[in-house]
């Protein structure tokens, strides 16, 4: 069966797997943002924590994805449902770009601007929310963009632990030695990654602080 025939005959299944895929990527990114950005801010305030935090996130990044999904199977609560494992693993992978870009974004704010803000009597909170985060926003968004694009690809592996998503079609196609079925999973995943990249790239440019062309 070729790619096109499979797609037209299984529209509903492909669409529901794509939704499942999107759900895993969306939820894991949300958690990664909720954890990664505060961690990135924290290590700009406590320089001693910088190396251990970045090193840990780095190590997580080096674990092969298939192995990480497997490692998490016996984990309490998470191991009960494949979807939980997938979301946890994807979140762990997304942490590094988020932590690193938040840190870099804040650290690359012009020191003259920070000094002026302090000298004007901004509190630490005001400095963070009125100056540092708005000026770092586009760099942080670039981190989210990288995380999402990586996640869309990685999430295909989640099917190996039974979490569903477009990877399901890829693994089925591999088992059937049928390129059409593989493509039915791979092509929508690639399109999803491209669209996310375009959308977030557009947002990133909009959030960049105005500067001379």
């Amino acid at each position: 069966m070729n790619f096109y025939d499979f797609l037209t005959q299984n529209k509903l299944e492909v669409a529901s797997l794509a939704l499942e895929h999107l759900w895993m990527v969306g939820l894991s990114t949300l958690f990664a943002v909720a954890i990664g950005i505060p961690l990135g801010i924290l290590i700009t305030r406590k320089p001693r924590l910088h190396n251990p935090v970045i090193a840990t996130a780095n190590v997580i990044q080096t674990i092969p994805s298939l192995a990480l999904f497997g490692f998490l199977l016996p984990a309490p609560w998470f191991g009960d449902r494949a979807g939980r494992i997938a979301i946890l693993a994807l979140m762990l992978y997304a942490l590094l770009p988020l932590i690193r870009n938040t840190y870099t974004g804040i650290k690359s704010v012009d020191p003259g601007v920070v000094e002026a803000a302090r000298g004007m009597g901004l509190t630490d909170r005001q400095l963070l929310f009125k100056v540092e985060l708005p000026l770092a926003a586009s760099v942080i968004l670039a981190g989210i963009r990288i995380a999402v694009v990586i996640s869309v690809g990685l999430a295909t592996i989640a099917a190996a632990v039974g979490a569903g998503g477009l990877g399901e079609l890829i693994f089925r196609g591999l088992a059937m030695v049928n390129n059409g079925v593989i493509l039915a999973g791979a092509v929508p995943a690639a399109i999803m990654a491209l669209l996310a990249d375009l959308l977030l790239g557009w947002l990133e440019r909009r959030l960049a602080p105005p500067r001379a062309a």
Partner: protein
Amino acid sequence: MQPAETAIAFHAVGYQLPNGREVLHDLSFEIPTGEILVLLGRSGSGKTTALKLVNRLLEPSRGQIMVRGRSTRDWDAIELRRHTGYAIQEVGLFPHYRVSRNIALVPEIEHWPKPRISERVAELLKLVGLRAEIAERYPHQLSGGQRQRVGVARALAADPPILLMDEPFGALDPLTRADLQHEFLSLQQKLNKTVVFVTHDVREALLLGTRIALLEEGKLVSCQSRDAFLNSSDPLVRRYLETFSEISGKRGPA
């Protein structure tokens, strides 16, 4: 008449870096309310450090600094900084805010009513010699001189009684710098703030300072009125004055 009130006083102030290097050594002087004190010295003499001790961006290792009769240690740092306008050479305008919001930020934080803030912004722009339409621009759309003017306007926004200025005109071309210096003098006559002004330029010091404190390697060499400074016999003061007269002597037709 009562003697002029002291706005800022340094009492035997020392400042040491964490690595043990002594940046300031036994610094004592007073600034009466309404005066412009110029901290003059070469790079690394400790003048910027002395300035940052006033608004507690740094804290002294020894001695104390009194601001309006209270040690900087007893001030709430945020409250102290809202009482002291701060303008620096890098200006540090917020690139993501328009000029108006740059100036309005501290009044906003202090919860001034909106109409009063926009009134204040318009008033300040006029005061520093900028056209009203500048308010809608972003910092990157301004010239260097305009940026410095906005920086001064921002420092004045909440009407602080004390103004700290760290080579605010240092990065400007000589003509723009001269304009801003003269405008600053006439501004000061209107506003009567107490000003601490850091510079390495003896010409600027003589033009602006009511009094001049000369720093060298973290020590106070002299602190005296402009006239006394001009007539000082101190060898280091003489060297500064010579660099100045050397240039002015060459001016004009021979």
